[in-house]
């Protein structure tokens, strides 16, 4: 947490708003420390609106657009699939969001109001997502919605959020090529997940040839497109040995495994999703490809997926994420036990689950910075909001509504956890429309 806080506070009066607003009982010590640092920013306080000093600002002041905000409560929505094929992936996100909401309420809520949530089931069905999103915005008048997982569900709800002016906190790493006033993307967009990982494998493993694999839909295709451009244009003397796609749910990988054995690429770059992973890694192992010798880099297997694949089948593979459950930092050391206490010892926490946990917190911090729940003000205040309590470390919202965050490489162990091997020194800038990678 050695962010150059002091200089920032002088340069940006808005940051002062964020800090002074944290002068409240019941805040945890990191905030107090920050507060002391923030005292240097006292000159900025003269710029504050008066309401910022009141303990509980009036409802009429913080809610001018008819959202579900009372003097004591504010309603948010949770919109994930808890039934259907995606339930297994999205359950972690729901759990993380509920944990964050509970913790925020224990600290006194947002702008003096407890968070109440309305949960809806997207049922792994994109039109249902759109219907429920509309219900959350139009009927329940949610001040924010934490939700969606697949790109398809986000694409289905995006027009709804833009039309009815809602605020969506979307947790999944995704393909980029999107930016909306009405969405905060708390996961990585493609370049944040891909480029640093390829650089790392090129530098430390001397990798020159890459075999790209993916499930056949927009995210793996776009990601591999970015990977290919980076390999061919930015890495010296590197080339793509092959690129193949498999239908969602496919379980037959023997022919491509044979091709991999023939071409002997330095790196297998795998973006296979969901249940297909189980078949893929088991067949790799059965074909005698030893992941302790053959480098495999994936961006689609989190601790959640390893649960299904089995640690012994994937041990030795590298994954490029921004969060691993095993991260060794003070935030994560309080987050993991809190999560397990609420949802059981056996639960594992993957990258997306952590990103989902950020949603309610970022929204709270933004609302307190904006001193309002109004969607337009939240959208405008979001850039620059920073969350120092993130389990992944420090994150900040970029002008393009994505997060600045670090890229990390972990190595899978037989017990189903990742061991951190490498992390970027600085936060990586989100770039949803990367030039030269289109």
């Amino acid at each position: 947490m050695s962010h150059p806080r002091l200089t920032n506070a002088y340069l940006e009066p808005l940051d002062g708003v964020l800090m002074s607003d944290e002068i409240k009982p019941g805040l945890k010590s990191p905030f107090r420390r920050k507060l002391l640092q923030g005292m240097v920013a006292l000159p900025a306080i003269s710029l504050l609106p008066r309401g910022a000093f009141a303990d509980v600002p009036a409802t009429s002041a913080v809610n001018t657009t008819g959202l579900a905000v009372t003097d004591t409560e504010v309603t948010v929505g949770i919109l994930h699939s808890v039934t259907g094929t995606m339930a297994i992936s999205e359950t972690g996100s729901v759990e993380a969001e509920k944990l964050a909401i509970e913790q925020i309420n224990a600290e006194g809520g947002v702008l003096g109001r407890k968070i109440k949530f309305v949960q809806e089931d997207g049922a792994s069905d994109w039109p249902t997502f759109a219907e429920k999103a509309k219900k959350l915005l139009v009927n329940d008048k949610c001040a924010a919605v934490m939700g969606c997982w697949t790109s398809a569900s986000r694409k289905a709800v995006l027009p709804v959020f833009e039309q009815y002016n809602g605020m969506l906190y979307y947790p999944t790493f995704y393909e980029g090529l999107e930016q909306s006033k009405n969405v905060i993307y708390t996961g990585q967009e493609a370049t944040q997940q891909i480029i640093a990982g390829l650089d790392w494998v090129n530098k430390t493993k001397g990798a020159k040839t890459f075999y790209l694999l993916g499930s056949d839909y927009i995210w793996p295709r776009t990601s591999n497109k970015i990977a290919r451009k980076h390999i061919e244009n930015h890495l010296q003397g590197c080339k793509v040995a092959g690129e193949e796609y498999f239908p969602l749910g496919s379980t037959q990988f023997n022919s491509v495994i044979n091709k991999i054995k023939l071409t002997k690429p330095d790196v297998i770059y795998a973006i296979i999703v969901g249940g297909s992973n189980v078949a893929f890694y088991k067949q790799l192992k059965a074909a005698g490809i030893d992941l302790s010798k053959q480098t495999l880099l994936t961006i689609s297997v989190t601790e959640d997926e390893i649960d299904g694949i089995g640690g012994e089948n994937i041990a030795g593979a590298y994954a490029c994420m921004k969060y691993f459950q095993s991260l060794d930092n003070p935030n994560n050391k309080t987050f993991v036990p809190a999560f397990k206490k609420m949802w059981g010892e056996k639960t594992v926490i993957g990258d997306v689950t952590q990103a989902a946990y950020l949603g309610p917190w970022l929204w709270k911090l933004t609302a307190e910075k904006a001193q309002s729940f109004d969607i337009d003000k939240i959208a405008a205040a979001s850039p620059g909001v920073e969350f120092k309590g993130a389990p992944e470390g420090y994150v900040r919202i970029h002008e393009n509504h994505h997060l600045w965050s670090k890229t990390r490489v972990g190595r899978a162990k037989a017990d189903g956890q990742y061991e951190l091997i490498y992390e970027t020194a600085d936060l990586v800038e989100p770039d949803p429309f990367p030039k030269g990678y289109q």
Partner: protein
Amino acid sequence: MITNSRFFNRSELVGLISLVLLLVVILPLTLDIFRLNLVAKYLTYAFVAIGLVLCWGYGGILSLGQGVFFGLGGYAMAMFLKLEASSAANTKIQSTPGIPDFMDWNQLTQLPFFWKPFHSLPFTFLAIVLAPAFFSFIIGAAMFKRRVGGVYFAIITQAIAAILTILIVGQQGYTGGINGITDLRTLLDWDIRTDHAKYVLYFVEVAFLFGAVVVAQFIRLTKLGRILVAMREQEDRVRFSGYSVANFKIFAFCAAAVFAAIGGAMFTLNVGFMSPSFVGIVPSIEMVIYTAVGGRLSIFGAVYGTLLVNFAKTSLSETFPQLWLFGLGALFIAVVLAFPSGLAGIWADNIQPRIDRLFASRGEKSGNGLIADGAPAE
């Protein structure tokens, strides 16, 4: 043979008038626009259900692939709307402006040839009706001419639904893949996302729905409808009487397909996108369930059944996000066990006789209303 001289007899007239009252007066007055738009979405499935009444209830042809035709109609409409939304000005951020966004993401640099005619609205309307008619004709001809029927036909339609889904998902550069075609905005520069547009679209849809009801009723009452029923009960006897059974079956199947496609097109307009999740096996079977719940011999029952199941789906899932599928399953089991002929059966057994007695006690004796009509072989 048929004593029914009127197009709708008295009990059907009661049914028609109450449906008109419900859809045109009661629902628009009592529901807010969000719920009314949901009703509009439900009613798009009612088109499919009416088609299934003809094809399955009367013709005895169980199709588990109606999603295919729903999808064809929906995609045709979506292609037109997507092209309109993808004007060069709206898509200038792309590497190739002027083509739909998902094509750009998939490195397509020009519009595929089969998309080009969808710049024209009249062509789109024609395609909504003719494409499914043509496609169902081919399937029907291939199956029924070879006397494939019953459960084999059901399985084949199901396979076709699966194939089409895989095709759409796999060819994402041309179809939008699993995301479908999203972010549709205007129809001939008229914004279809506003509340006002939702009202207009709702009433347009209801008008089309009554059109479909009338056409279905017409088919049912002609000699053609009688032959369908005869075929369902004793196919060989009809064949021996000199009728070409296959042609009648093809007709019923095509009619159901066209109804489904119109429903699909209305779906795209009302909901604002189309995706392969309406084409596959699961939605196709759901559509059969709507018909079964409503009563597969009743055109009005199909509409009520669709509304009931979808209302249940929405309200159960809103109230019990984790458990609603069980509730819905229980509802289906209850309906099938307790009321095998669906809502229409409940009406005919319990409510209709009372109404008839009421009319009879008033001394109004019109012989033909009391005679069971529709399908003599029931």
